[in-house]
């Protein structure tokens, strides 16, 4: 029932919250923590490779870093940071007061959070996953990896995947059912559109990895042999399952950032997004084609000429809608009044870096070229340009752009710009030379390399670049701590924005909108502020309302209990000795929590 005694901001308030904005902050903070962790893992790798035959870390540690850096950055950084934006922005941008299922939303976060811990729990007993983020069978078989490292990875991912699956259905329903009056699908902000496509990709792709992870777990613990050639299984089966999930996953990572950039560029060039409808269709096309290109990760497995031809053609085709987006972004800023600040710099750098990564992607869309590039540093360079220069830079743009809305304070501009340039320079110095290393045949995931290969120079350069980025990252964390307490106060509409979130106070009240908005146009807020000739209009006086009359869901501790039970159940599956009891305890908690949840007054 309506519950408007002062919002509970203590620890208990955060644990039991079902407010989408608070959950967004939880997602953001946890993903930034994992970003730090993944960054440390990257630095360890780059330090090991600074000279040939280095012994900074052992082969085992290095392989663990390779695995955990990839897994962490994808599943525990880019996905949940995107989720933070989904959570905060989708309801507000479509004029709703919360997501469709607020407690389910809290459940998603807590499952993700505990799953992330489970994924990293191997560190505590020195059995860190080391089979690569792609976990190719049959290296994951018990015969070749007898310790629990693969189990931490498989079960951790299973739990984290469940969180994304639940969240994707929640956001899909929210977008479909909770748009305010007048907000037709083609009047939704571009970010909501790319989010919608992302949710569809998530709930179509995640079940595949879920099944694959169940199979690998059964192989390891019940000897099923799905991926064991000695028992009639197939190692290629894993690769198909993994990449049927894994390639849509790439678009799951990049689409939210594309949406963010499609919000930032119009605001800071004071022009609408160029070709909105074409941008919508191209996002859908990317999502659709994203399911038809998975085997381009497998060009060297011996697919046969016809499959190879099909996947070459499909992969090239996906470059078309992506290219359209890039030209449309350039047309968006063309003729505008481009304001440069940290947010817009990150947004613009997304376009540049993503284009570059896209072009090297066209190179190995051709299967013959790919047989030379596959598993070399050329591919490492390519996907870091797309996922780091692209997704991460875009997400950082989003952080600087919406931070004032979320907290009511600006992130420090000066520190932000220094961080941006440290990132841009460090990033390019790290990853551009990796193209050279790839052309010179340096394979990926090698814990060291011989001195007679001639790879020393560019490895040294890449490592120095990585250190530069690390300084930028530390500066960002300082900026965050500084600005939360001492940042300049932000008004409701600091950037002269175009979408609904800028119509409400910074930070927004718990109920978002006192009076539910009615939308007439795309970029409705802009049209409220300016007429067609660009003359400023005076905003109508805000109607008054009684906050106490607004129904909001009650806080609940059942989501965190259920998530903890679920994670215990998963962990008990592979804990030696008393694991069964841990699992049973977990199942009991899940059952009790579900019961409590079902009968709780929402």
């Amino acid at each position, binding site marked *: 029932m309506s519950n408007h005694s002062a919002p509970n901001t203590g620890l208990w308030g955060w644990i039991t919250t079902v407010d989408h904005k608070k959950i967004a902050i939880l997602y953001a903070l946890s993903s930034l923590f994992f970003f730090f962790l993944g960054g440390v893992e990257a630095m360890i790798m780059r330090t090991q490779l600074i000279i040939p035959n280095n012994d900074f870390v052992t082969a085992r540690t290095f392989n663990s870093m390779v695995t955990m850096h990839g897994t962490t950055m994808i599943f525990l950084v880019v996905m949940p940071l995107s989720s933070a934006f989904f959570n905060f922005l989708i309801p507000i941008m479509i004029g709703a007061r919360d997501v469709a299922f607020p407690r389910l939303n809290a459940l998603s976060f807590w499952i993700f959070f505990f799953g992330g811990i489970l994924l990293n729990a191997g560190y505590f007993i020195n059995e860190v996953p080391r089979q690569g983020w792609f976990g*190719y069978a049959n290296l994951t078989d018990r015969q070749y990896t007898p310790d629990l490292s693969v189990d931490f990875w498989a079960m951790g991912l299973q739990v984290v995947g469940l969180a994304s699956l639940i969240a994707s259905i929640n956001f899909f329903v929210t977008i479909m059912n909770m748009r305010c009056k007048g907000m037709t699908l083609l009047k939704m902000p571009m970010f909501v559109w790319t989010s919608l496509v992302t949710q569809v990709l998530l709930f179509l792709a995640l079940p595949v990895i879920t099944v694959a992870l169940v199979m690998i777990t059964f192989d390891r613990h019940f000897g099923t042999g799905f991926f064991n050639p000695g028992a009639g299984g197939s*190692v290629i089966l894993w690769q198909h399952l993994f990449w049927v999930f894994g390639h849509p996953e790439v678009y799951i990572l990049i689409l939210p950032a594309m949406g963010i950039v499609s919000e930032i560029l119009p605001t800071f060039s004071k022009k609408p997004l160029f070709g909105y409808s074409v941008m919508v269709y191209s996002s859908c096309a990317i999502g659709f084609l994203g399911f038809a290109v998975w085997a381009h990760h497998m060009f060297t497995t011996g697919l046969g000429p016809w499959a190879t031809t099909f996947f070459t053609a499909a992969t*090239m085709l996906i470059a078309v809608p992506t*290219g359209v987006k890039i030209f449309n972004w350039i047309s968006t*800023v063309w003729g505008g009044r481009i304001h440069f600040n940290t947010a817009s710099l990150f947004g613009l750098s997304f376009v540049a870096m993503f284009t570059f990564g896209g072009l090297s992607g*066209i*190179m190995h869309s051709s299967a*013959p070229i790919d047989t030379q590039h596959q598993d070399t540093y050329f591919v490492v360079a390519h996907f870091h340009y797309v996922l780091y220069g692209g997704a991460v830079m875009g997400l950082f743009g989003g952080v600087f752009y919406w931070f004032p809305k979320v907290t009511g304070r600006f992130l420090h501009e000066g520190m932000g710009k220094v961080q941006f340039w440290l990132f841009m320079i460090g990033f390019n110095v790290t990853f551009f030379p990796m193209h050279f290393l790839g*052309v010179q045949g340096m394979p990926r995931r090698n*814990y060291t390399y011989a001195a007679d290969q001639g790879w020393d120079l560019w490895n040294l350069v890449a490592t120095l670049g990585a250190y530069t980025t690390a300084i930028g990252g530390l500066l960002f964390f300082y900026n965050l701590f500084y600005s939360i307490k001492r940042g300049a106060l932000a008004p409701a509409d600091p950037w002269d924005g175009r979408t609904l979130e800028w119509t409400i106070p910074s930070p927004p009240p718990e109920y978002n909108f006192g009076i539910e908005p009615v939308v007439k146009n795309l970029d409705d807020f802009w049209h409220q502020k300016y007429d067609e000739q660009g003359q400023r209009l005076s905003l109508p006086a805000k109607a008054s309302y009684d906050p106490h009359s607004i129904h909001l869901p009650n806080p609940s501790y059942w989501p965190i209990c259920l998530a903890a039970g679920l994670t215990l159940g998963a962990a008990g599956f592979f804990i030696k000795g008393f694991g069964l009891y841990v699992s049973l305890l977990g199942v009991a908690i899940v059952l009790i929590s579900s019961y409590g949840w079902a009968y709780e007054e929402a």
Partner: protein
Amino acid sequence: MVSLVRVFKVALFFILSLGFTACFEKLPMSTAHVVTEWGHEINHVYLITTVITCLIFVAVAVPFCYALWKFREKPGDTRIPVQVRGNHKLEILWTLIPVVLLIFIFLPSLEIIMKRGAEPPAGTFTIEVIGHQWWWEFRYPDLGIVTANELYVPEKTPILLKLKSADVIHAFWIPRWGGKMDMLPGVTNLLTYTTPAVEDPIRGDYYQGHCTELCGLSHARMRYEAIVLPKERFDQWAKTAMNPPLVASALEKKGQELFMTKTCFTCHAIAGTTAKGQIGPDLTNFGNRRMLASGTLHNDTKGFHNWLRDSVDSKPDYQNVKPGSLMVFAENFVLTDEDIKALQAYLQHSTAKTF
């Protein structure tokens, strides 16, 4: 302004020449210095693709940079730009142009894919390549030869490699010969080459290969060399390859005894002796190998000593030279430096074949 443009030009020239040098330096695993027909075909498509992608890059970068400069906000600028919402003609144009450009990459790619997909003619000279954690086994079924970590082939000959794995997935790749192919347990993948002509007819030409699929701890230590010989030299090699060792000195004899009494023989085979182990690399040709432990150490006194000392003294999985190597010994196993010297004499000299 002029000076800025000049700085930019110099920087561009510097970066381009740096990149050019970096990509075209003749390093052991350079994909730019290919020697086979397949390699050249790939690089031909690669060149077309590079030109096209560079054109697209310019087509994106120039208007983008121009727009950022031209339409930047100047101090005191308060104009509201015209709210352009799109232009269908332009959007159709930049949908169609990439499609046309991609066809120019697709067609030559298709040609290579189909050519590579063709069945090799029957009777092609066949070599079985078997990946192990972390070494390479090469078997010549027609010649009855088994060897490890060095692939001998005759020049200008069509060869068929049957790629297999004894444990996990590995990948076969000699960058200067063309693309790579996975070696999957339970599956035999085929890879065909026409071997290149020889430049150095005496020593033969050495080409470096490397495993390119993460295959466990010592994936980085899984190298090999392909050695191309003139046909008559290859035939001589084939004739002598499986000859039994010639034990000349007393030290070599001691080495042989150690080999046959210590645990070596349980894992390694040497043709013509009682050593018939199948777990580790076949050592019949050991004396001819340039490298040791699949490209990890030089096969000289220092390398040999390091390899054995480290393998005997380290705990399994925690070796310094090759972590995870299956060459492990019981805790109480003793191998003195003198023993190593004798083993070295036997393995490096007695097993070396003259051909």
